[in-house]
């Protein structure tokens, strides 16, 4: 499903963040990425998300060599295949929960209010449709962002520390959602600092100075 070949990323001559990375994640797999701060986890995830480009090497997702795509093609590929969840939720502050989800539909194809409502029901926010992000708790905002990530039925969900800003109880709700998605067959990649999450997926990739230092099958 996701394959990287000799992936390298340098921001300048001195900082090589990713160094000749070869990763393969299978369809329907849940992979966690862990590593110390600054080890290049976010950088890697951004490249897998088609938000950023590597300095060297290639990424093949679902049979498409995404590193060869143009900016607009990358955007189109992303909204078709990838759902993104961020640590800071990144919702549009002046739009309601429902509208935030519908916005993703809008850029993808057409808005379907019923479908957007269903997605919010699924994350347990059926009663918060018309709240703006400022009137939602952190956990609720993250659930809206998951609903947004799911709305266009992407095969892959990429999340960068999705529970990083949440307490245990809310973190658990989010993780339960990911479990649900996993059983539904989505390919999931989560960057996390939380060792508990680390044990949850099918496998754990440990990064250190831009290289995989350890990889183990947890399930």
């Amino acid at each position, binding site marked *: 499903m996701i394959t990287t070949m000799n992936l390298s990323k340098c921001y300048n001559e001195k900082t090589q963040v990713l160094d000749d990375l070869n990763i393969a994640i299978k369809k329907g797999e849940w992979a966690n990425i862990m590593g110390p701060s600054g080890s290049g986890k*976010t950088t890697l995830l*951004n490249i897998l*998300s088609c*938000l*950023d480009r590597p300095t060297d090497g290639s990424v093949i997702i679902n049979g498409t060599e995404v590193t060869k795509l143009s*900016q*607009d093609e990358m*955007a*189109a590929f*992303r*909204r*078709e295949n990838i759902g*993104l969840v*961020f*640590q*800071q939720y*990144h*919702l*549009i*502050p*002046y*739009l309601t929960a429902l*509208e935030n989800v*519908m*916005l*993703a539909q*809008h*850029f*993808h194809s057409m*808005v379907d209010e019923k479908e957007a409502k269903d997605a919010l029901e699924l994350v347990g926010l059926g009663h918060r449709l018309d709240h703006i992000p400022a009137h939602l708790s952190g956990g609720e905002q993250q659930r809206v962002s998951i609903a*947004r990530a799911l709305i*266009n039925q992407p095969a892959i969900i990429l999340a960068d520390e999705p529970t990083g800003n949440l307490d245990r109880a809310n973190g658990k709700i989010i993780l339960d959602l990911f479990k649900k998605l996993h059983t539904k067959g989505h390919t999931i990649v989560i960057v996390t600092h939380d060792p508990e999450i680390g044990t949850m997926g099918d496998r754990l990739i440990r990064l250190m100075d831009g290289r995989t230092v350890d990889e183990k099958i947890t399930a």
Partner: protein
Amino acid sequence: MYGRILRKSIKVRRKRIILAVIAVIMGASLISALAGVYLNIEEKVGKELSSYGANIIVKPKGDDIPLEIGGVNYSSNQQKNFLREDELYKIKKIFWKYNILGFSPYLSTVVKVGPENESVVLTGTWFDKEIDIPDEAFKSARVGVKTIAPWWTVDGEWINDEENKPEAILGSAVAKQLKNKVGDTVSINYNGKMIELKVVGILHTGGEEENQIFTNLSAVQDLTGLQEKVSEIKVSAAITPEDDFAKKDITQMTKEEYIRWYCTPYIRSIALQIEEVITDSDALPIEQIASAQGNFIKKIKLMMMLITLVAVAASALGVMTAMTTSILERRKEIGVIKAIGAQTNQTIALFMAEIGAIGVTGGIIGYGVGIGLAQVIGNAVFNSTVAINVIVLPVTIIIAIGITMIGSMIPIRNALKIDPVIVLRGE
């Protein structure tokens, strides 16, 4: 969806948007005002400039090149040919009658005045007279020196054309020379024939007329025995600036060209039409005034275009400032929109909706303000209202949208350069 985003994003950024709209209003109102004035300017400036003097002088045909001293024809005592007073009204019956803003007849002669028998020119004319124009919708017309030389000022009284009293207005230089003032009587000696005129006013013109004595046309006709005669007529006509076609030799024109020429208010075609109605006359355009009028209109138009250009630029700059700040504030939002899959054209469309809203709002309000502004300009500059032209509304809106687009170009380019990876990086 665009509608919803637009409404909400405008609502949260009300101040920025209002600022942008105000910038557009300023440009659009100036443009609509100037456009309104521009469409009226030929008529307005034509009228205005014509009030700076007559631009056509009508003389008897075959009149010799006169010996002129102090603006008066000293050979006029030997003048054999005259124009007929009873034909004057016909000047207001020509094809371009509505462009005849005024005219005045003159009959001048040299007389001896005062105890020292000074030689002075005595001119009979009309001052401010309403004459009947038969078979015309407007029935009558106001004529006389006041209609062609509105800047003349008189200390004391003007002469009333209707009363026909033995009165005189002294040019200020003559008054000084004769040491006469309002209320005095001057004795006029014309070849031994004496009349007494009461001084009712002292005339200031800034020109050669200050060396003359003015009285009723009929008084000079009686004195000289030239009943019903006038020696020249000065006409003030609203004209259109001369172009190359205007200068073409009419004897070389085709019939169609001649009709077009005749039906255009060029100074020469109006002059020709006057010659046609005044028996044995030569109507001569006063070149300097005519071409000055044409050039002045051209220059004013050019100046207005420059002002418009500056207004557009200033307005676009205002929009740019507002939009740049706005986009800076929305960096993160734009990053999110891109991250969830917006392509370049979709991002642009988002801004275009906003540009359209700002442009149309600014354009419509600007048009309204512009109408008011045009009236203010009309009143202040031309002393009259400016006709409202509906064509200006769509033009203003289009220009307003154009201004917004020009002003937004650089900010949008910057927005498109926003890299979601950088703006979404946690802080």
